[in-house]
C-alpha cells in the first residue's frame, strides 16, 4: 500500500512536469480547443455573426421608403423642434429630453438609420441601434433571453425585432386586458 502511494506521488510529479512542458506551447492554436469533450451545437444553433433572422420592420402603411417624401431637393432642417407638417401622430416618449428624430434617423439618407458614430444601419437591423444604449437587453436578446421566442428549443428559433414589440418612439408597454380569472371553487351546501 505504502509503495503504491509513493508511486502515485511520483507519477503525479511526472505528469505535472509534463503538463508544464506542454504549457509552454499552450498558445499554439492546436492546443486551444479540445473538440472531443465540448458540446457541439446543432446545425441550427444561433449563429455568432451579428446578423440575425428577424421579421421585416413593422412600418406604418405607406410610410416607407421615407425618401419618397424626403426627396433630395427637400431642405434638411436639423433644428430640434416640434413637428407640425408631418408625423404629428408620433409622440416621443423615449428619453425625449435628450433625443429627437435625427439622433436615430439619418438626415442624409432618409431610408436608413444611423449609429451614434454615424455608421448607417438599415431598418432591418435596427436592433444594433437600440443596442447602443440598451447593451444589456441587446445581449440578453441575442442569447434568446430578452423577448419572445417561438420555434424550437433545440433548433431554429423565431426572433423579433425590438420594434416588433416596442414602439421605438414610445417603448414602454401599454397595460393590457387580462383574460378572465378561473371560477372560485363552489361551496358545498
Amino acid at each position, binding site marked *: 500500500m505504502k509503495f503504491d502511494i509513493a508511486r502515485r506521488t511520483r507519477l503525479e510529479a511526472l505528469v505535472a512536469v509534463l503538463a508544464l512542458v506542454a504549457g509552454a506551447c499552450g498558445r499554439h492554436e492546436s492546443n486551444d480547443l479540445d473538440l472531443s469533450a465540448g458540446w457541439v451545437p446543432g446545425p441550427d444553433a444561433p449563429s455568432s455573426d451579428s446578423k440575425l433572422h428577424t421579421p421585416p420592420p413593422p412600418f406604418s402603411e405607406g410610410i416607407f421608403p421615407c425618401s419618397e417624401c424626403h426627396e433630395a431637393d427637400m431642405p434638411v432642417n436639423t433644428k430640434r423642434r416640434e413637428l407640425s407638417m408631418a408625423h404629428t401622430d408620433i409622440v416621443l416618449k423615449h428619453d425625449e429630453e435628450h433625443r429627437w428624430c435625427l439622433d436615430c434617423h439619418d438626415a442624409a439618407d432618409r431610408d436608413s438609420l444611423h449609429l451614434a458614430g454615424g455608421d448607417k444601419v438599415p431598418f432591418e437591423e435596427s436592433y444594433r441601434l437600440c443596442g447602443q444604449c440598451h447593451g444589456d437587453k441587446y445581449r440578453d436578446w441575442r442569447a*434568446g*433571453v430578452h423577448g419572445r421566442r417561438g420555434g*424550437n*428549443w433545440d*433548433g431554429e428559433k423565431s426572433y423579433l425585432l425590438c420594434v416588433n414589440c416596442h414602439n421605438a418612439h414610445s417603448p414602454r408597454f401599454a*397595460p*393590457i386586458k*387580462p383574460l378572465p380569472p*378561473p371560477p372560485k371553487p363552489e361551496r358545498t351546501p
Partner: protein
Amino acid sequence: MNAPETTRRDMLCTLAGCAAAALAGGCSDFTHTEFFRGHFKELSEDELTAIREKIEAECKTKYDKDVTVSNTPAREGVQFAYALDISRCVGCRRCVYACVAENNQSRDPVVQWIRVLEMDKEKGIDFEHANPYYDAETVPRPGHFYLPVACQHCADPACVKSCPVGATWKEPDGIVVIDYDWCIGCRCCMSACPYGARRFNWKEPSLPADQVNANMHILGNRPRPKGVVEKCTWCVQRVRDGRYPACVEVCPVGARKFGNLLDPSSEIRYVLDKKRVFVLKNELATHPRFYYFYGL
C-alpha cells in the same frame, strides 16, 4: 424458482377477467389489453401501440377527429428546465388559456394547469396573500406583481413519492408525468405537492370537438377520464419534438424560457449563469426545475 410459472398478475388477470367478463356480459370493447395491462414502464411496444390506437379510435368516435397519440420517449442528453422572468410578467393570463387549448383541458368544469398569482409588491412573495382570482380592466395593476405557478417538475418530487400505485413518475428528461389509466384517483399526490400544481377531474371533463388539439402524447394532453389527476407536462407532445411549450410561445412579454440544462449554449443556462434566480419553497428540498428570475 427459475422454472417458468404463471405469475401472480397473470393469475389475477385470468381470475378477474372471468369475473369481469361475466359481469360485463360480453361487452365487446372490454379488452384484456386495456384493463389488465402492466405498469406503463413495463409495456411492450405492441401493447403500447394497441393502447395508443385505442385512444385514437375513441377520439375519432367521440370528437369525429383524426388524432395522433404519440409515445415519443425522452431524448438522451436532455434535462429540461424552465425559467420565468417575474420582473416582466404582467399577469395577462395568455399562458393559462394557451395551455388549456394546447393540452385539451376540460372547459366545463374549468381545469387550468397554470395559476397566475397576484401579489402585493409591499409584501413580496407571500402565498398567504396571493390572489389567483384578480380581474381588472388592465394589468399590471399598480402596486402588484404576478407569479404564474404550474408544476415545477421537481428533481425530488413529493408527488411521486406519495403515489401508492406508481401512477406518476419522473421521466429521464426530467418531466414528471402521470399515467391516467393507472391513476386510482386517491389524490395523495395533490396533498403532497407543495405547489398546488395538480388538478383532479371531479366530473367528466368536457372538450368541444372543434377545439380538440389532435397532436397528443400518451402521457400528456390526450383526453383524461373523470376521477384522475392531471397537471402540466411542459407540453411533452411538443418539447420531445424539439419545440417550445405553448406558454413560452404565447407570452406577449417574453417572460417564459425553456430548454436543455445540459446544453451550455441554451437560454436556460444563460439565465442560470447571469440572472438572479430563485425557486419556490427552496426549504422543502423538492429541487424544482422551474426557476424564477429577475431579468430587468
